[in-house]
């Protein structure tokens, strides 16, 4: 297998295990590339990528942009606040206008679930989903799984806990799908109000007891408390949340084994995890960020390799 089974990266749902393995293997090589004195390869020098961000993002956009530039692609950035979206243009029109300027690939983040899929059905381009509402965030899941594999050697039969706001999280859904495809066991943990009702139908277990979950797992992925949704009162207060679902050094040390701590960022220090946990050697948060660029390079490279060259045009 040296080719992806899909034309776009819309979600982990559309990938098979061998796709994920291929992305990991390719990312391994790119990780070496981005640690060279000169961190650039010419593979995509004849391609142009548009980063369309209809929703705020700093690290994902930065990570994608770096990945594109390290592959020598030309990059154009677009963010919704400064665009004609606010003037009432439809998504298809916006994207087709950009494609008319001879753009080859589109990386899109959008607040509506399914936006990336919709686009893939309606425009002629390679689409990479950089997060669509509360649906999927495939590259985050890939880099999370890759980082775990790097630490533990394999994902087979490993126990991964995803802790926090599962209800609103696209990271959670993509992570669950990706980890399961790679043979890991997943448990979600959080306040009952933030665990979706039928989450077990995805084949995961759920728990509202953090200590018991941490004792069970090999890896805990601590999701961010979404301050912006705090006024909806899914839990009484940040302080209570951090007491019941936050991890500090004492909690970590009380466990019978050393577990790995992950966080997709941005961290609310002192809420999901304390500062000493975030900076401890059990945390792989910065590995995740570094691997993010390598994973995105692999995804872009593998998708681009399927784009035929047409000299007639």
């Amino acid at each position, binding site marked *: 297998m040296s*080719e992806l089974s899909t034309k776009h990266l819309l979600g982990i749902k559309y990938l098979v295990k061998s796709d994920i393995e291929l992305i990991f293997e390719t990312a391994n090589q790119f990780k070496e590339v981005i640690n060279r004195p000169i961190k650039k390869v010419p593979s995509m020098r004849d391609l142009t990528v548009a980063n369309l961000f209809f929703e705020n993002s700093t690290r994902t956009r930065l990570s994608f942009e770096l990945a594109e530039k390290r592959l020598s692609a030309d990059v154009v950035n677009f963010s919704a606040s400064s665009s004609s979206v606010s003037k009432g243009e439809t998504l298809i029109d916006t994207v087709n206008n950009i494609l008319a300027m001879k753009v080859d690939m589109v990386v899109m983040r959008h607040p509506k679930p399914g936006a990336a899929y919709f686009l893939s059905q309606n425009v002629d381009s390679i689409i990479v989903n950089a997060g669509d509402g509360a649906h999927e965030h495939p590259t985050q899941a890939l880099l999370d799984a890759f980082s775990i594999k790097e630490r533990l050697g394999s994902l087979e039969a490993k126990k991964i806990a995803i802790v926090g706001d599962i209800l609103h999280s696209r990271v959670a859904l993509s992570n669950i799908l990706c980890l399961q495809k790679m043979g890991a066991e997943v448990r979600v943990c959080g306040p009952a109000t933030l665990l979706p009702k039928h989450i077990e139908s995805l084949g995961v277990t759920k728990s509202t007891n953090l200590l018991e979950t941490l004792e069970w797992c090999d890896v805990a992925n601590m999701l961010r408390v979404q301050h912006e949704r705090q006024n909806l009162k899914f839990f009484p207060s940040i302080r209570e949340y951090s007491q019941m679902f936050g991890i500090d050094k004492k909690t970590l040390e009380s466990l019978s084994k050393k577990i790995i701590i992950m966080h997709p960022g941005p961290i609310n220090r002192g809420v999901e995890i304390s500062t000493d946990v975030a900076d401890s050697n059990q945390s792989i948060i910065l590995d995740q960020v570094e691997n993010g660029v390598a994973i995105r390079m692999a995804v872009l490279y593998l998708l681009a390799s399927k784009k*035929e*060259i047409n000299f007639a045009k």
Partner: protein
Amino acid sequence: MALNKKLLLSPRNVDITLRRLAMQLIENHGDFKDTVLIGLQPRGSAVLEKLLEILKNQESAKIASGTLDITFFRDDFRRRNTPLQPSKTKIDVLLEGKKVVFIDDVLFTGRSVRSAMDAVQSFGRPAEVELLVLIDRRFSRELPIQPDYSGQHVDSLIGDKVLVEWQHLGALEDAVYLETGDNE
């Protein structure tokens, strides 16, 4: 289609050829102080291993070496039916100002070597770059590239295949074959 497999180098000849190439390297590079031997992935690294083994017994000093994968620097990206899978690059030394010797098993079109010349720049600007190959397939070059050290040259058709087999990689013995078919 009938395939003819002709022996080009027997195990004994592979050994003799490698020894000769190693001696030529010593002749030109002396104590290897500023030299780095780079095996071109995937198949050049096997030749590199063999050469290092011979050189280890000849030279007291440690010889700097590494492997270079050129997949991301190839000029046929998006032009192949099945994309190539990259192999590992491992270069732990800065190549700025060093004498680099590329090592590969077969020199055919010269395109890999061109890509390698591009790729190697990511590790600094070498003072000079040389090319050592076990087999030189003459008359099939697509670029103006010639080896500085060559084990054996072969005149073959484009459709022919040169197979280099290594015992330490699972083959029966170290040997080089030329596989020719009735033209398809």
